[in-house]
């Protein structure tokens, strides 16, 4: 099947086939990453603008790296250097970028829905690199890509997402990707950060860490932000760590082959023991590397490239 989609705005709107096409294409690009000549000429002559109106290091670098590996020209703007600080609207900024003949926009924005808003204004593809607490589709795609590398098919696999789910776009994109792929997903964390409404997305919600971790094959930790404490969502980082931090004892409840994931940046000693973050079950840095391949696939497909065939077993 050919690829039709011009924008990548959410994982929620992707079909299972599209999701698997992205993964298959990412797998092909990943093989090019280990070659001597790591650049492919797929997007030669195209200009991609990374419009990062909210701080980011990992995602922005990975998008830049992916675009460069595809031989595209890349311009990155951040919030501080864009005219947004002079009061320019997002519409005007984006229309100017299009008028400057960019071929694609990658946007990171604090306001949920802003990539969809841009996609309606512009003729060029818009890639969502994270919009508020809504979605971070390439993260969800690279996380599930990483899980598949370790577990094969995710159908029926027990995945736990642990931490600040309420404010997490990473959690939402993973929830949509994992439920499409048939995984058995449980969200865990303080009840103030994991409200019951998430069950409407096809996942379970639990506040019993032991029960949830028992025999889980993947545990994905989310960063706990200090400002949530100030807003009264939990009493203290110490209490959070005491109740929900992943340590050696709790990791022993997992399936023996389980992997530990984190989208970064990590708070060592808060949501995860430092030792576990660096341990052999941790795939945290693999996630980062896979982030390049997955973003190459997304940029390539949305620029009009055609996907790799999805192998039936994957």
């Amino acid at each position, binding site marked *: 099947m050919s690829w039709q989609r011009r924008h990548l705005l959410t994982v*929620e709107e992707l079909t299972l086939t599209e999701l698997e096409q992205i993964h298959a294409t990412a797998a092909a690009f990943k093989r090019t990453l280990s070659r001597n000549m790591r650049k492919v000429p797929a997007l030669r002559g195209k200009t991609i603008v990374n419009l990062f109106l909210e701080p980011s290091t990992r995602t922005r670098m990975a998008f830049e790296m992916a675009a460069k590996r595809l031989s595209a020209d890349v311009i990155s703007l951040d919030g501080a250097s864009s005219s947004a600080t002079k009061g320019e609207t997002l519409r005007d900024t984006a229309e100017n970028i299009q008028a400057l003949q960019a071929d694609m926009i990658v946007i990171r924005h604090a*306001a*949920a829905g*802003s990539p969809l808003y841009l996609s309606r204004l512009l003729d060029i593809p818009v890639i969502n690199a994270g919009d*508020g607490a*809504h979605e971070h589709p390439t993260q969800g795609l690279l996380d599930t890509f990483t899980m598949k590398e370790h577990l094969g098919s995710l159908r029926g696999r027990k995945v736990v997402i642990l931490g600040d789910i309420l404010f997490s776009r990473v959690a939402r994109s993973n929830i949509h990707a994992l439920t499409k792929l048939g995984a058995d997903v449980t969200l865990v964390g303080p009840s103030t950060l994991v409200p019951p409404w*998430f069950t409407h997305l096809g996942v379970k919600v639990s506040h019993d860490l032991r029960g949830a971790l028992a025999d889980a094959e993947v545990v994905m930790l989310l960063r706990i932000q200090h400002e949530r404490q100030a807003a009264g969502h939990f009493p203290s980082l110490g209490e959070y760590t005491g109740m929900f931090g992943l340590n050696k004892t709790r990791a022993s409840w997992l399936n023996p082959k389980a992997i530990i994931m984190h989208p970064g940046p990590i708070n060592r000693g808060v949501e995860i023991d430092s030792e576990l973050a660096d341990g052999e079950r941790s795939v945290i840095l693999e996630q980062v590397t896979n982030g390049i391949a997955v973003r190459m696939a997304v940029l390539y497909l949305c620029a009009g490239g055609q996907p790799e065939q999805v192998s039936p077993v994957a």
Partner: protein
Amino acid sequence: MPALWIQNARVIDPASRRDAPGDLFLDQGRIVAPPSAAARKRARRIDARGLVACPGLVDVHVHFREPGQTHKETIATGSRAAAAGGFTTVVCMPNTSPVADNSGTIQLMKDVIARDAVVRVHPTGCITVGMKGQALAPIGSLKRAGVVAITDDGECVQSNDLMRRAVEYARMFSLPVMDHCQDYSMTQGAVMNEGVVSTRLGLRGWPHAAEDIIVARNIILAEQTGAHIHLQHISSRYSVDHIRRAKARGVRVTAEATPHHLALTEEALAGYDTHFKMNPPLRTEADRQALIAGLRDGTLDIIATDHAPHTDYEKDKEFDYAPNGILGLETALPVCLDVLVRQARFKLSRVVDLMTRRPAAIVDLPAGTLAEGAAADVCLFDPEEKWRYDAKAGQSKSSNSPWSGRDLRGRVRTTIVGGKVVYTDGRITA
């Protein structure tokens, strides 16, 4: 001004329990008894066959943005939007720039109203100085300057003590206190109803409890002081319950529902369209049904539009950054006919009552009736006409309406204020 003879209408006047085919006679700015044959001959006739003739509609909740925000709306354009929607009496909220917290600003508004308005426009004054919720505004001087109510609408007085003093004090002047019910501590950064849809969209949720708590507070204060508190734009089914129980024991609270809360739910926000962003936010289907039930059994007293104009460039933003509010005046009647008459099976006269006599009574204005001797304020509408609403072609200066481009059923044909036709068939004639 020649006398007017409206012929062959279905005349609906809930105040005089009239709903029957007939004629209306308007002379010297008043509704009059059928005059002599000679006088009839001289009258200008309006053929109203197939139309409903009802009292001019009354809206106790509009934002006309003058002074200070006249890029959005003015008293001239807002009153024309009112006329186009069949409204002959409207009550303006005081959150202008500067806010209407002193008699000088009220006098300025009254001067502009006298000069520019094509319908009857009444100002309200603030409850607190600068609408800051810290000190009482000069409520007595505001009353003397002619306000019909006090309110900090757009803001909500957070201090229970100050609110208690405000209603106690306003009671001395028989001024209703209108409150926008929202506990700010629960709605920091909130832009839509809290629940399944906000969870999916990643938007900050505004829990219904933040409304319910202030509604309960106001009920307690109204009960304690005997003052009249009017609860603006109720959106939560739990608030409806609180009000129902309060009324059952005789507490002096009244409450309004907006056409948009009656017609729409949070599901409309799926595409992050800022034309569905307002405060309080659209809520669930269960809430919507509870509002309709509340209007049916009298728990909710009236319909009010919360007509809130904003320019295109203000609304055309990321959802989080767009201002709250939508237009209401030019679509209120067809939307209410659709939701309340055609879907919920209210009698047409009941809906007219909710939009005329009852809102007038809340602010104690002698409007909303076709009784002989009453002001000749009349709305003629075709309850069945289908038309496509284009907000850009409407009378309001702004076009921020979720119904723009949509097909509506029921259309105002003619609006008469004080015996003068101010709007007819798409044109302002004042």
